[in-house]
């Protein structure tokens, strides 16, 4: 039999829930394993190898000292797949960028940090923390699998595409699209708020399927009109800082404030654009 593609899993700062989601696929995973050789997967296997074709990377980068390991993975891999919101967007911990890192360290490590902050001891490796960023800020990523956590079906679809050498088209519609296909009740119609209109789909609207709202874990879709979304949220009684807080939970690195400001500068029609309207977004 010809050599099977060699797959390796790696992770940086995250909860490893996306790799767990892969493990929870169950028997289809066993089928997939027959078409690839998983040569490194620290969370699940003790086998280790430096030779691999496909690197699946979970987690965000939040320490400068992790960048070398990430770049070494990129050099060895033919294809890099970013697995989950931490890798693709920076993840919820990206919100830490809004705080002073010294304050965060003092908060978590208490006196042990406060008493040595600013000195050589404050530079001990246990305290290292830098700006949180997605892996695409450091290396070229070939395929993003968004979500917190990922959708297991999308993982299988991506792997199938990679294995047969077919390009993978990332979903770029709003979560509303999948919500409507499933005929779920619109969250706005219930008088509540939702990030579905601006968030990239691919999750099959899992949160609205359970009567909750979309929190935007797959990030903003391309060409998003955040300004209109902001208007809609304001109409529902939210204040601008609440709205930015919603956008920032997963998409801090997409700079929602800037996108809102950009949209503000462009001429707009009297009525804000709504999902489903026939006029195109800005």
């Amino acid at each position: 039999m010809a050599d099977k593609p060699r797959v390796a899993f790696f992770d940086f700062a995250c909860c490893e829930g996306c790799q767990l989601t892969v493990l929870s696929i169950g028997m289809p995973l066993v089928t997939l394993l027959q078409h690839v050789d998983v040569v490194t997967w620290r969370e699940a296997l003790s086998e280790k190898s430096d030779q691999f074709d496909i690197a699946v990377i979970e987690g965000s980068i939040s320490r400068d000292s992790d960048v070398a390991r990430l770049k070494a993975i990129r050099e060895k891999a033919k294809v890099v797949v970013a697995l989950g919101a931490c890798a693709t967007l920076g993840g919820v911990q990206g919100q830490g960028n809004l705080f002073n890192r010294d304050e965060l360290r003092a908060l978590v490590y208490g006196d042990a940090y406060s008493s040595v902050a600013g000195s050589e001891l404050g530079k001990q490796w246990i305290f290292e923390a830098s700006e949180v960023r997605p892996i695409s800020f450091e290396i070229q990523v070939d395929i993003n699998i968004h979500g917190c956590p990922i959708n297991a079906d999308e993982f299988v679809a991506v792997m199938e595409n990679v294995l047969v050498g077919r390009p993978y088209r990332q979903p770029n519609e709003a979560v509303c699209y999948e919500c409507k296909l499933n005929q779920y009740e619109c969250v706005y119609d219930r008088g509540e708020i939702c990030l579905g209109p601006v968030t990239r789909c691919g999750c099959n609207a899992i949160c609205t399927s359970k009567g909750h709202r979309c929190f935007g874990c797959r990030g903003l879709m391309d060409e998003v009109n955040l300004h209109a979304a902001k208007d809609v949220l304001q109409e529902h009684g939210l204040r601008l800082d609440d709205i930015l807080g919603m956008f920032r939970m997963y998409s801090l690195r997409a700079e929602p404030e800037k996108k809102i400001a950009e949209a503000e500068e462009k001429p707009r029609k009297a009525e804000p654009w709504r999902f489903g309207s026939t006029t195109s977004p800005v």
Partner: protein
Amino acid sequence: MEIRVDHITRVEGHGNILASLENGRLKQAIFEVVEANRFFEGFMRGRDWEEVAHLATRICGICAVSHCYASLTATEAALGIEVSKQTKLLRRLTMNAEQISSHALHVYFLAAPDFLRLQSVIPLIQKSPETVARAFRLKKTGYDMGEVVLGRHTHPVAAVPGGFTLMPKLSEISAVRERLVALRPDLEATVELCKTLEVPAFERETEYVSLRQPDHYAWIGGDIVSSDGSSVTAENYRDAIQEYVVTHSTAKHVKWTRDAYRVGALSRVNNNWKQLRPEAQGAMKALGLKPPMHNPYLNTVAQVIELIHCVEDSISACAQILNEGLQEEDIVIKPRPGRGVGVVEAPRGLLIHDYTYDERGRLTKANCTIPTGMNYANLDREMQALLPTVADQPKDEVQRLLEMLVRAYDPCISCSVH
């Protein structure tokens, strides 16, 4: 003898074993935790009471349900929210779901290869496909149970302060019940598998800490008790449990009455075994387990005992739900300032979330104390006790025993650093 294991495999997160012996005497044995801090306690501040659990559950991918409930019960305590009997029943069912899923993952995929002297579960796909299929069945049943009620196991969707956004259909609960009943032969086979495992002969008595409820095996709420006889209420955990920083770990270490204690399945079974379901107590008898158990490697077997308990308890919970039906509930919550502490037994042990909210319902202060973090001090001391007793063995074997010891704690490293 020098042993260094960088990024030990088959555990969640990044940790290293550093151990050395000089002329058969202990020089060093520590578990170095190198996982990056994500500063959850810092960045969650300022978030609204109804967003906090959404974030907090993301501390951990394996025990997301436990974090979700620790977070929700902390918020509910702070905001003065009482949940219904129905909500408690669904929470009990889904806590069971998480233990089933997590314990099955650990017992079969992470720990078992050590006992069988394999690198991973992959060689078993060819050698013993039935074992692998059984492992997936157990794991997936737990995972799918969580999905039926919560929309998703990692990370839960439907669980919110006060209850659930949407009730599962009774037909789904009925299907879950059938799948659970069908797991009974798998549980028997798992007990049989345990009988064949060669558990390293090593004992070290320590302090065992867990929650305790007066009338049932505790998963959510209750007092925090120690096998040394102390007990503290959840709100006052800080009077007892102290977190401190060590120079070899990005996660804090924790102590109570002694310099280290242990949490997790072994502690729970040691402290609360009389409250286990008769089927689980029967399995203990069949395996010759008599609490208190002081062999740290038996944690994996204690997980098997809990697996049986959780499946049987879930079958009862499903029957109760099917009997009583499920009603959609209106949840009306008014924010108020205050502090609340939520305690649960995550698969890896006692988990504490401690929140303070302001008058607008914004989180102003958070502290999360994680089971794996509580275990590190004890793990270090256990490695230090083990090492001299195996000094005459070949290096490979010593390394295997050390790695096995780390895995016996089923550490969840990223969670412990959070």
